[in-house]
């Protein structure tokens, strides 16, 4: 098991955002967490990434606890979170953004090779390497954000709402890349509002509501579940 989250509780001040969440991800799997706005998806991911500290519960990555580690150490262990809203470095060039993705690595030659690899996944970025990140279009920024996350060569890639606010054409492109990564054997934890697309690509899924996991199962099961259908798949 690559990631095991047990009874996770997270507070913002006095307000409890997560009420004991448990789920796991197996090596090589693509797992999705679906849920509506404010259900606690992003909170869960930020806690795994080390930006929020859990009140209770355990996060185990490859068998060891990561809940007390700072964010940069978690990246070094092999978890990479591509955050909601892209959050690329807008004043840095595209190339610098990618280099920052590999900031924990020391193997310069391999980093250069990986830049080429990322550019092969997102050919749109090729001609814009020296452009400031902030000048890119929304879709290009999303590609850059994913590319930047891949530059740490994560064993577990976490994507938070990668298709949010993108035109259908770009959504397809993003999901094609996720499919490629999946076929290459990357483990992916995907959080999406677009539950239909997420369940198409994922092996398994969890449904989260107001800080609790309310349902889990294989994608086929969830897709055919009536409650999921009416709440997340538009009937």
């Amino acid at each position, binding site marked *: 098991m690559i990631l095991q989250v047990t009874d996770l509780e997270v507070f913002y001040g006095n307000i409890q955002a997560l009420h004991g969440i448990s789920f796991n991800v197996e090596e090589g799997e693509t797992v999705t967490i679906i849920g509506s706005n404010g259900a606690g998806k992003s909170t869960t991911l930020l806690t795994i990434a080390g930006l929020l500290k859990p009140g209770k519960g355990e996060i185990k990555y490859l068998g060891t606890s990561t809940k007390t580690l700072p964010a940069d150490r978690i990246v070094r262990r092999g978890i990479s979170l*591509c*955050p909601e809203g892209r959050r690329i470095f807008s004043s840095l060039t595209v190339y610098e953004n990618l280099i*920052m993705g590999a900031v924990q690595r020391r193997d310069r030659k391999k980093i250069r090779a990986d830049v080429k690899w990322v550019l092969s996944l997102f050919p749109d970025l090729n001609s814009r390497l020296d452009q400031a990140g902030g000048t890119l279009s929304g879709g290009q920024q999303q590609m850059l954000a994913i590319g930047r996350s891949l530059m740490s060569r994560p064993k577990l890639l976490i994507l938070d709402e990668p298709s949010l606010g993108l035109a259908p054409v770009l959504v397809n492109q993003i999901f094609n890349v996720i499919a490629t990564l999946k076929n290459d054997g990357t483990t992916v934890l995907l959080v999406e509002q677009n539950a239909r697309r997420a369940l198409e690509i994922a092996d398994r899924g969890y449904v989260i509501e107001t800080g609790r996991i309310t349902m889990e199962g294989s994608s086929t099961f969830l897709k055919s579940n009536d409650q999921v259908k009416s709440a997340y798949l538009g009937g």
Partner: protein
Amino acid sequence: MSSTAYFFQQFINALSLGSIYALVTIGLAMVFSILRLINFAHGDLMMIGSYAILMLFNAGLPVWTAILAGVAISGITGIIMERLCYRPLRGSAEMNTLLTSFAVVVLLENGAVLFFGPNTQPFGILNFIQPTLAVGSLLISKIDAITVVLTLAILILTALFIKKTTLGISMRAVADDLTASQLVGIPLNRVIVSAFFIGSLFAGLAGLLWSARAGKIFPLMGFIPVVKAFVAAVIGGFGSIPGAVIGGYVLGFAEVFFVALLPPDFQGYRDAFVFVLLIIILLVRPQGILGAKAMERRI
């Protein structure tokens, strides 16, 4: 003296003063861009560096060794300051960190009064350098010349560092988006400590140059320069390093020519002029002369 020669000398003078402001402002801006902290105690690193150099020199160290060691002490003091005073406050309200830095000023300046005494001491360790340099018919202060050249070299190195090295790019990334920079794995503490260290080294060096210019040092010497460096940073658009440099030089020139142009009776008002300038710029062009969006960029 011809008016051209007078003008030229004032020009060099302004260039030298501007260089010192630029050195101080870089450190202030680096820390601000990352932490949103205005570190008033940054000026006291000038004071600590100068006293350290003087004491080491008086203890018998060769002058260049004393200078290197003194500047290093200033840098280390900056690191200690971050660790003890600012790190525990990370993430707390902007105003709290500002007031804290104000308290650190009082702490350091009174510490200096306690250790070094309240009085002004002569600072003549660079006096062995010939006072003036003749260029044709012009006489240039050698300290000024050294200040300008040395600063220029440092500025070029800094620009390369910020532009090319992983640490330099990391600093810009952290200034851009703190959360994202943690998510990609930038070691935040290392970046912050580096910013403090580099800024403090520059402050120590600026302290040496400032003290050599003034010929004296005293425990409270760092306060006015740091507040002026803030003005310079505002001129340049707060948080941007190139802006800090330009702001430093603009301020140096404004100040020198203000003094040169006004009747002697009004020269005492020089500092008042600088702060009136600050308030006007803050109101009219809060994004600074360079127009960087530094103020809105960070949440």
